[in-house]
């Protein structure tokens, strides 16, 4: 029984990593899993679990993302939030101080991004967003970002440049698989 469980887990985990053998096309699309928190009107302040589709056609500086998140806890799946946006990698550094903590080959790749967010409550609310990802690393065929703060604006508010709220992505694991 234990072996069967382990085989299943190995099989499932195997799908999380792209194949990058010599001559193979490098995957440009994939998914990311993240844990987020929002301080926004009409959005639950509970921990949100999010899944995003990510696409970086040239594996360059621009990564498109679109996905949804739901609050965990005692209001599971009560108020979903959908979002789409663009991440821009500022630079990539092979040498960085966190290399010792990451067992695979890694690159420090901080980024910033922007997009739109919609809280799907009874009356959907739209927000513009901007975020920075100061602790972002490219590891193997994936991307890891920790502690990424974001701010939100309500474009319909009379003072559109005054932030409406803020949020944070505690972790974000992206895997390029296709």
């Amino acid at each position, binding site marked *: 029984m234990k072996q069967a469980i382990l085989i299943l887990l190995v099989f499932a985990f195997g799908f999380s990593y792209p194949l990058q053998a010599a001559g193979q096309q490098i995957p440009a699309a994939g998914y990311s899993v993240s844990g987020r928190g929002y301080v926004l009107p009409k959005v639950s302040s509970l921990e949100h679990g999010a899944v995003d589709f990510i696409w970086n056609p040239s594996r360059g500086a621009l990564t498109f993302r679109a996905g949804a998140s739901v609050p965990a806890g005692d209001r599971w799946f009560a108020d979903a939030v959908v979002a789409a946006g663009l991440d821009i990698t500022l630079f990539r550094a092979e040498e960085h101080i966190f290399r010792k*903590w990451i067992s695979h080959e890694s690159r420090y790749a901080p980024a910033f991004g922007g997009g739109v967010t919609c809280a799907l409550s009874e009356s959907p609310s739209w927000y513009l967003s901007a975020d920075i990802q100061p602790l972002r690393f490219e590891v193997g065929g994936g991307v890891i970002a920790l502690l990424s703060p974001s701010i939100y604006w309500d474009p319909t508010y009379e003072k559109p440049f005054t932030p409406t709220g803020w949020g944070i992505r505690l972790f974000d694991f992206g895997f390029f698989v296709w």
Partner: protein
Amino acid sequence: MKRLILILLLSFFPLTVFSFDWAVTGGPVTYFPAGKHVPEGLYAQAGARFVLTPRIELELYASPQITPEPFSAVGFGVLAGFNLLEDIEPAYFHMIADAGVFFSYVSETQEMHPKIQVRLSPLSIGNPYYRYRGRLLTFGVLYDLKDQSVSFSFSMWIQNWFVSRH
């Protein structure tokens, strides 16, 4: 409060002079149902985890509220961890159970609630050899000794970064 934190820190400081594997831990956690001693929000958990034997570990962690009001509530936990399936090395996949105590403190009410905590990670990936271990879908039960009530915790992911090898 400060005295308690100091005692906890001093109690575990001697562990660091021994040649254990140990890890920095971090991840998000949600406590539910929300109440006056566990206000609703996103919480982080961060601390250190010591591999005492191939099967037994010890974790000391803090769990501050991040949203909606950062650090308006905080918890401190001391947990004994057990690798249920196999020794921590060389196995790559594990199931981990933790049991211990958790103290929650809310600055608004200035109340501290001690709790018995039990939690289970049905899947964890990695070990000290790989310098990381990710614990997925960790579900916990907390029994409040003051209120004699039960609450729950859930973490999608808790990461252990092993920064020391024996």
